[in-house]
């Protein structure tokens, strides 16, 4: 028994020494490090300064460009090269695979300090593969309205771009407040049917589309649903008889689009849904198509401004969403304004 006691004591002593030494070594080599809470809610230790970034999501990439940290990016997802006009400075960076399933070998080869992905994609395997090799994995969404400001702030701290982050947040908050201040007290909210990318699938609570609709001063007819993207029947929409229909669509590359015909055909299809000519929105022509570029994500505020104007033209006649979009692209993204994003 005594023998064991001594052994255990020695073990504890030894291990505490080791831990102490390890801590000293870590402190000696790591320089400054910060602890942040990412979109999954877990705390991640990030060693500063961050010099090399692999960015798997285009949402995060947009924010990084807005923070003037484009030059830190060493790897991107494969989709970026498909929109060369929108990403002039980034399109030729090495691609490491898709946003949901990147190639870890390529990432390791680029030897970044951190990799940024969505909260849910890619899966936990990313941590398993990369963390042991000293690559920090950070998950930030940049598509949820509620966490947008917090995530921009976190990114600013990680990249040492606090001031740029503050600027972006200020701009974003200001524009959002502009809409929210007017829309929140509104009592006569129009009934809105929000259709997500897939036909007859709406956006219920928990989806970005629902959040945007409410912020813009609309009443989502699916607001008492229990799942975010449920299938619904066309008859239900008819029975609810919404005053406005918002259709989110995703052609990709709207930045390069000149001709609004593809968006128009989406609208025509909605208007031609069987029996929907009895719906108020269709009868009054209040069916609006909105491209994924300004639908959730960093530019959701632009989508919200469009929606606010559609819902309450007299209240929001001071808003100019196109000007807002131009300002954002020129000031924060460093590219000129072009493209087609809404119809009509």
């Amino acid at each position: 028994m005594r023998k064991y006691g001594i052994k255990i004591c020695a073990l504890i002593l030894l291990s505490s020494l080791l831990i102490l030494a390890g801590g000293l070594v870590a402190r000696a080599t790591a320089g400054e490090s910060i602890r942040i809470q990412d979109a999954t809610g877990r705390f991640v230790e990030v060693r500063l300064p961050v010099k090399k970034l692999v960015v798997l999501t285009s949402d995060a990439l947009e924010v990084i460009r807005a923070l003037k940290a484009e030059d830190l990016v060493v790897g991107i997802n494969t989709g970026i090269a498909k929109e060369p006009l929108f990403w002039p400075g980034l399109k030729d960076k090495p691609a490491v695979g898709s946003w949901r399933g990147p190639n870890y070998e390529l990432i390791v080869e680029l030897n970044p300090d951190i990799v940024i992905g969505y909260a849910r994609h890619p899966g936990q395997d990313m941590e398993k593969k990369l963390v042991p090799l000293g690559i920090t994995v950070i998950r930030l969404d940049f598509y949820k309205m509620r966490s947008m400001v917090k995530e921009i702030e976190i990114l600013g701290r990680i990249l040492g771009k606090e001031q740029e982050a503050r600027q972006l947040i200020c701009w974003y908050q200001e524009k959002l407040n502009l809409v929210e201040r007017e829309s929140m007290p509104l009592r006569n909210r129009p009934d809105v049917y929000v259709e997500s990318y897939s036909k007859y699938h709406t956006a219920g609570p928990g989806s970005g589309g629902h959040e945007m609709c409410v912020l813009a001063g609309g009443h989502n007819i699916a607001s008492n649903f229990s799942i975010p993207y449920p299938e619904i029947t066309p008859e239900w929409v008819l029975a609810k008889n919404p005053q406005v229909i918002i259709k989110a669509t995703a052609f990709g590359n709207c930045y390069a689009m000149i001709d609004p015909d593809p968006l128009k055909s989406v609208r025509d299809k909605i208007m031609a849904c069987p029996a929907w000519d009895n719906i108020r929105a269709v009868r009054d022509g209040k069916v609006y198509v909105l491209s994924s570029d300004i639908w959730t994500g960093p530019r959701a505020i632009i989508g919200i401004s469009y929606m606010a104007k559609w819902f309450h033209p007299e209240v929001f006649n001071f808003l100019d969403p196109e000007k807002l979009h131009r300002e954002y692209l020129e000031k924060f993204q460093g590219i000129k304004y072009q493209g087609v994003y809404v119809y009509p």
Partner: protein
Amino acid sequence: MNNISQQYKNLTGRKLSFIILLVTVLFGVALIALSQGASSLGVKDSFAALFQQTGLAHAIVWKLRLPRIVMAIIVGCGLGLAGTVFQAILRNPLASPYTLGIASGAGFGAVMVIVFGGGIYSEYLIAGNAFFFALLSSFLILGIARLKGFTTETMILAGIAIMFLFSSLSSFFQYMGTMEQVHEIVFWFFGSLSKVGWKEISIAAVMILLPCPVLLKWSWDFNLLSAGDESAKALGVNVEKVRMLGIVLASLITAGAICFTGVIGFIGLVSPHITRMIIGGDHRFLLPASALVGAVLVLTADTLGRTLWAPQVIPIGIVTSFIGVPFFLYLLMKKRREYW
């Protein structure tokens, strides 16, 4: 002698009355389905609307509810028929549009158009491409089987391999796709009857009904095939032709059944079994009865799917398995003897 022919008549009578029962049940379920919906239209008004020419009630019943019901019936019939034909010509209880990879092929064809059509695609293109890939998979199976000699086991095995191939290809699209395309494909794999209008129905109906007369004409050949290839040949059945053409026709039916509605699994496999357990293996009755069983199953599943959790819809592909599997297992347990 008299006794035997009397017995035969009785048996035939039983089979006929089962078919009549099915038609009645189908009609009843259709009436219930017609009276159920998200709008405030009552049961009485729903039926009255059937005979109106204009108005909201007319629009709801004629443009929204009826297409759904008719499509459910057509798709169910198609899957039931295709399953029966595959099981007959391959003489294998595991054969079905899905286990043979033909539905996966058709699905891949449809998904391909949905993904690469850029949102602007025509119904004909979906149907055509679905049929093309359904045929491609059936020819692959036939080709492999021919190389190895026509054993039905190799065909099923080849079919399962092809099912995996096309499923992977569809998953590959999903993996490569943008977030939006992923949505589209995911929902496609759940199946849905919401998106069909009369145009899609007419295309699907042609693809499913066109082969029916030929298949019914071949009922006797199918019956003889169940005795084995040699016996069937000895009795004058052109086995190769029936098998080749049978697969092509069943592929056409499969493509018609799933190209607009997405994956509605299980029906093609169980409808023939359920029917065979009840009325036996005479294809003159088995073919129509199995089609009707499929129709009843799909229509019931869809009606439950859109009413149980209204206004949210439980995708049809999920509900068919929910109600089909327990029913099938129940029948399987009840039948003690080996029925196949």
